[in-house]
């Protein structure tokens, strides 16, 4: 629960910076890999937002004449079996991937924070119960849990987000709980109580803000995992349904068969997944170094 004062941090590093532009530049200099990751992520966010503008063709429109066309002038990344433009599909895939990644991470963190805060603050039988449930949930690998959840909820965009968010909860709850446990013993909490503040107010307005740094670290780390899980689920046929262009599903359609005949169907969606996850991982590492000095390497 080290509260991080960025200005102090910057001053200590000998930086004489004012304004957001020079601060950003300074941080980019200090964490070059993290800055690189941020650029990748921003590019994908840009692609997701302006997908309709920067692609020439609708990603779902088929064109028999272009079936399995190789990358070239008419189709930048080639076309799939149904003649759908791969460049359009890959760019639009960023929407699905980021929607699911950000959506499930946000949902998982929200529920995890509520459970972790309540568990660490209330203690007693509630805490005991939560601990055991977390143990149970952690006995299953992320993908297995998401698979079963996705199958039981049925294939849709919303259900995929829910299916991936559930296995993310235990980790968040655990970290927030242990932070809450430490913070609730601090003198300022006692002072707040002495002033007659209600427990809920103390927990939400005075304890919660101090758990934000570890939460941000955890959330950026889990974003990559969430995106990968969506790709795996869709690859296995249990994630995003047609006609949404999901990278994972594009790969499952093109699997073994097109490995021989149309490698571009395999290369581009996979490259997109790897790049965006790589970007979030780089960013996540830098965020951890910045916000969590104990883990600094």
């Amino acid at each position: 629960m080290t509260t991080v004062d960025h200005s102090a941090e910057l001053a200590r590093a000998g930086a004489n910076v004012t304004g957001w532009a020079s601060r950003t530049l300074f941080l980019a200099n200090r964490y070059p890999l993290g800055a690189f990751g941020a650029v990748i992520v921003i590019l994908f966010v840009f692609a997701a937002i302006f997908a309709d503008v920067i692609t020439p063709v609708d990603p779902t429109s088929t064109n028999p004449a272009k079936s399995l066309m190789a990358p070239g002038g008419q189709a930048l990344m080639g076309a799939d079996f149904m003649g759908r433009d791969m460049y359009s599909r890959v760019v639009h895939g960023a929407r699905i991937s980021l929607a699911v990644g950000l959506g499930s991470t946000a949902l998982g963190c929200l529920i995890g924070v509520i459970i972790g805060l309540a568990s660490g603050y209330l203690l007693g039988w509630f805490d005991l119960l939560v601990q055991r449930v977390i143990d149970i949930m952690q006995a299953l690998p992320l993908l297995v849990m998401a698979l079963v959840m996705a199958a039981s909820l049925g294939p849709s965009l919303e259900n995929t987000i829910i299916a991936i968010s559930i296995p993310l909860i235990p980790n968040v709850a655990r970290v927030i709980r242990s932070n809450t446990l430490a913070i609730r013993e601090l003198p300022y909490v006692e002072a707040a109580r002495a002033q007659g503040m209600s427990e809920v107010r103390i927990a939400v307005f005075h304890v919660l803000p101090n758990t934000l740094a570890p939460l941000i670290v955890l959330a950026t780390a889990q974003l990559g995992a969430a995106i990968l899980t969506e790709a795996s689920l869709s690859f296995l046929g249990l994630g995003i349904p047609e006609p949404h262009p999901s990278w994972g599903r594009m790969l499952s359609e093109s699997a073994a068969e097109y490995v021989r005949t149309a490698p571009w169907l395999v290369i581009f969606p996979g490259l997109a997944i790897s790049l965006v996850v790589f970007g979030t991982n780089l960013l996540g590492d830098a965020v951890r170094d910045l916000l969590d000095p104990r883990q600094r390497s």
Partner: protein
Amino acid sequence: MASYLVKRLLLMLLTLFGMSVLIFVMLRLVPGNIADIVFEAAGMIDDADKAQIEAELGLDQPIIVQYLQWIGGLVQGDLGFSYVSEKPTIEEIGPRIPITAKLALMALIFSIVLGLPLGVISAVRQNTKLDYALRVISLSGLSLPSFWLALLILMFCVQYFGTIPIYTRPPDTLWDELLLYSIPAAAVGFRSSALIMRLTRSSMLEVLRQDYIRTARAMGASNTSVNYYHALKNAVLPVTTIIGIEAAFLIGGLIVTETVFNIPGVARFLVEAILWRDYPIVQNLVMFIALVVVVVNFLVDLLYVVLDPRIKYAD
């Protein structure tokens, strides 16, 4: 120690019991059971026939009765019958376990052999170009979806050997088996090796700052001896703890890799069973996976005591 063991074992049982309830309830959230799927596929609906099938499979019973029947069987070693093949579940799952176990073991060995030395090198050469390169490689290992890596390997094989090394029939000799499993094992293991490398690096960096390392250097020990003998011995301790996490990690990777390489192991079987709503198979397989994860974690905790005499589990 003895009461610690008892407590841990009881907690493990509690976890597995909770898992059984969780998985059972989760599977029943599914709209539609196997009878629905079969009838939907056949394109006809005869309510009488459907009711008969449901009665045969026990799907018309109250959910609590279904659960008790399953758990009752489970503790007696009776895992029920697959809805799809109508064979005993144990006969379906049993022969697939060794295949996945071999794959997982090979992947684990691969990840350690690759990850540990690279992690040490990365730490020893901290903040050099080599360190940066190795860190980027390990991070990309964590970023590549293992099924894509598997597909790329297939593509490479098609390009240069003209053949795809996928599973078509059971291997005859040990050598065949090694050859067949080595590629999928590497595809899964690469991801795990990245995890091991990162942990080894940060753990080594911590150890290298300690006093006894400076003492060893002061006494004239060579760099190699300090790094690989004195430091690694202590740095490797935290790395063992992630073998437990690794087990969960590997299972996730194996699910997609077995699918790509067409390997008839338990991991791919789980996906098939889920798609078919084959409850007895899914339930028992998920319980099996949970058992493996829980037991591996327990063993790792015990191993830790053996490896590091400073650690004692209080009662």
